[in-house]
């Protein structure tokens, strides 16, 4: 811990906010470049540099960090523009994104060659560059106000409000937008019981998937007397298809720290850990910088906010093990051991990290905490459904027009999420087919799938559980009609089989056998007993495993068996994959009307399974066919079909 009360500066939040407000008023425009992973991969940084270059060329001035020196009235306009690198703005599909304030213009798919035009026309002349605006797919209408873009209009971004807006390199921007005020309040003005009660009243439930009431978890940790207690932020976002926590840690790391400080005050902890998976190097470095800044300002360390309380945070980088998302496994990992789960009870609230009472919350949960204190529990409760309060972020991916990061209140339906925010389902040829999805996988490898019958189901913890799925961490993967559900089940089984830590036999061996059974189905070796065996095994793994990984590993299989049993039956009994995705089950046939009898397919066939002669359509002999697909690729008239 650095510095003592005597040498350390304690930041005056109110003054920082005042100065910031005054200083920001002097800029004509604020140019926000999205520096989330998606936009970065598409060249956001070169756009950032191009903006600086072009603005200088025009003889104007641009600041990259807000100039907070107090200026005299006449030289206020020292800089014309403020160029900001933000976290993920969510609309990844349309990246790289450039947002201009105060005009609230969102330019999509910006290229470096567009920058000159944006500077000359929008920044200098206040005109719109229509071709860069978001175009509504139906009306072909260009949306000028970013809040009116359906992707954003239908969302309710409370927790994500600042993520994608504030400068990731400037903590003062977080403070200017109300950041750390609630941490200060929790340190100086609230008692531990008050904080726990407020969070309990808000109805906040764990956003990592389990949905345990956060306030109760805190209270259980609070009542355990101990000299040392810990707060852990679980940023081991291992679910394939989920990236919400990553965006928060990268785009607004201070909100995570603030949530942790409040949690620490609620349970009287003195030390915190943020456990981040190693695949997120940017999140690690942003959090480390944020922690350093917070320490320098007396927000972390000893005597935080000038009080007699101490709390410090350390970043712990994971090393690539999905099971470490489970709380007891995560604790083992921080202790430097193999990340294997242990039996509960004792719960971490009694005996957690190094045997001390520990509270573990997910990134999103903690980042929501300051928002709740600011809004007040009463106000927050108004969002969501009867049993699930507030909002939830989802990573919307797969076969959907607008992939990205979204935040909606609990109770929103798939029709709204996929159809309106997501802009519709995309088929394999890239056509938009409205809400005609085959399934939406929710909750990753622990979750299940939702189908057309759930289109109007209000999504919340309990409804999803009843439908055989779960909120999980919030990955929503949309699948179009051409997806083979048996293969999807196999995909998840492969994942959990790989990630099973090996402690429980039924999980270690059971998942392996389930995978083998799914392979039998996909490769045409299954018989009448296979499905029964698969189901029996699934239930065994579910009952006999210790931790969440094993308990939920069979979910994708059970849920696809429930909703797509006919597809399994087609694979098992008819040796046919209805979507034509399983290579071993593919049968090829010639469409007589289309066949020009050129004979190319017969010449390409390696096993002479195609017969015919000039003028007579060719025929494939199914008995001889080895399903290699050579004829299919060779045919120039699309006369050969598979399926």
């Amino acid at each position, binding site marked *: 811990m650095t510095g003592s009360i005597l040498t350390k500066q304690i930041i005056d939040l109110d003054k920082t906010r005042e100065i910031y407000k005054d200083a920001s008023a002097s800029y004509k425009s604020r140019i926000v470049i999205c520096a989330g992973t998606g936009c970065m*991969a598409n060249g956001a940084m070169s756009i950032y540099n191009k903006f600086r270059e072009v603005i200088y060329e025009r003889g104007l001035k641009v600041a990259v960090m807000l100039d907070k020196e107090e200026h005299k009235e006449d030289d206020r306009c020292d800089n014309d523009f403020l160029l900001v690198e933000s976290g993920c703005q969510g609309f*990844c599909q349309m*990246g790289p994104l450039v947002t201009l304030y105060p005009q609230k213009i969102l330019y999509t798919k910006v290229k470096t060659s567009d920058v000159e035009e944006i500077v000359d026309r929008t920044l200098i002349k206040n005109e719109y560059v229509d071709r860069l605006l978001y175009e509504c797919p139906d009306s072909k209408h260009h949306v000028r106000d970013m809040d009116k873009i359906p992707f954003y209009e239908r969302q309710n971004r409370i927790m994500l409000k600042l993520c994608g807006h504030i400068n990731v390199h400037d903590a003062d921007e977080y403070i200017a937008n109300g950041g750390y005020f609630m941490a200060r309040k929790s340190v100086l003005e609230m008692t531990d019981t008050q904080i726990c009660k407020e969070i309990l009243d808000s109805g906040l439930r764990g956003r990592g998937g389990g949905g345990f009431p956060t306030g109760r978890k805190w209270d259980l940790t609070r009542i355990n007397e101990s000299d040392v207690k810990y707060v852990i932020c679980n940023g081991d976002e291992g679910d394939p*298809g989920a*990236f919400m926590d990553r965006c928060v840690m990268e785009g607004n790391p201070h909100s995570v720290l603030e949530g942790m400080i409040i949690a620490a005050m609620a349970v009287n902890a003195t030390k915190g850990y943020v456990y981040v998976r190693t695949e997120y190097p940017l999140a690690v470095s942003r959090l480390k910088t944020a922690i350093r800044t917070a320490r320098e300002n007396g927000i972390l360390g000893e005597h935080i906010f000038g009080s007699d309380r101490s709390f410090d945070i350390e970043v712990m980088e994971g090393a690539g093990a999905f099971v470490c998302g489970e709380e007891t496994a995560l604790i083992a990992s921080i202790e430097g051991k193999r*990340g294997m789960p242990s039996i509960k009870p004792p719960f971490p609230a009694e005996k957690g990290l190094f045997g001390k009472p520990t509270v573990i919350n997910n990134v999103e949960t903690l980042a929501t905490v300051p928002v709740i204190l600011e809004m007040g529990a009463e106000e927050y409760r108004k969002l969501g459904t009867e049993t699930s309060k507030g909002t939830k972020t989802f990573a919307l*991916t*797969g076969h959907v027009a607008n992939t990205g990061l979204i935040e909606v209140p609990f109770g929103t339906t798939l029709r709204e999420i996929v159809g309106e925010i997501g802009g519709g389902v995309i088929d394999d040829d890239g056509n938009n087919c409205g809400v005609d999805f085959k399934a939406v996988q929710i909750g990753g490898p622990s979750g299940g799938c939702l189908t057309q019958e759930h289109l109007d189901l209000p999504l919340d913890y309990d409804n999803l559980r009843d439908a055989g799925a779960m909120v999980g961490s919030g990955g929503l*993967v949309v699948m179009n009609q051409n997806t083979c559900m048996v293969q*999807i089940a196999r995909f998840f089984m492969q994942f959990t089989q790989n990630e099973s830590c090996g402690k429980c036999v039924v999980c270690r061996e059971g998942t392996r056998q389930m995978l083998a059974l799914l392979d039998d189905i996909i490769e045409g070796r299954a018989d009448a007993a296979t499905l029964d065996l698969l189901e029996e095994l699934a239930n065994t793994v579910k009952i006999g495993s210790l931790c969440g990984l094993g308990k939920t590993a069979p979910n994708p299989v059970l849920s696809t068996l429930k909703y797509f049993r006919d597809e399994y039956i087609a694979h098992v009994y008819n040796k046919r994959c209805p979507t034509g995705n399983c290579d071993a089950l593919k049968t090829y046939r010639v469409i007589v009307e289309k066949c020009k009898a050129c004979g190319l397919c017969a010449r390409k066939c390696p096993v002479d399974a195609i017969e015919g002669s000039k003028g007579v359509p060719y025929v494939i002999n199914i008995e001889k066919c080895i399903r290699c697909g050579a004829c299919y690729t060779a045919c120039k008239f699309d006369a050969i079909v598979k399926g």
Partner: protein
Amino acid sequence: MRNDFPVKFDRVCEVLDKHKCDPNKLIAILQEVQEEYKYLPEDIMTYIATALGISPGSVFGVATFYSHFTLEPKGKYVIKVCDGTACHVRKSEEILKVLEKELGLSGRKKTSDDMIFTLETVACLGACGLAPVVVVNDEVHGSMTKEKTIELLNRIREQEKQENNK
């Protein structure tokens, strides 16, 4: 490579000192050591175990448990094909097949003989909005197709050739 061995060994000692030989910091220590060597040599792991006062078996146990650690040297370019759900439904498998064919690698043989390429699959890189994703060292390439993959590979090969000519 052997010549800088003592220098790197000094780094190992530095890392151990930095973490005050605390066995609880084993994962962080292994990460920093791997950063240096690009893999975890067996004798180094034994040395770490002795320094921390734990059995070599526990170090080996941790090193083999987490997928981030590797006991074998990797190629100069580590190509990771994301096979997360979003990438999977957008046909990441085809991209993997193309790379395996082009590089002559497979699930068993992950690194090319000339130590230039290592091909891996990862469960999810959290860049689902850009699916399917391929990462070369730390550079993310999104919305990949078979054609773009071959183009990317050719670009790396060209770069490699130029570096060799220098």
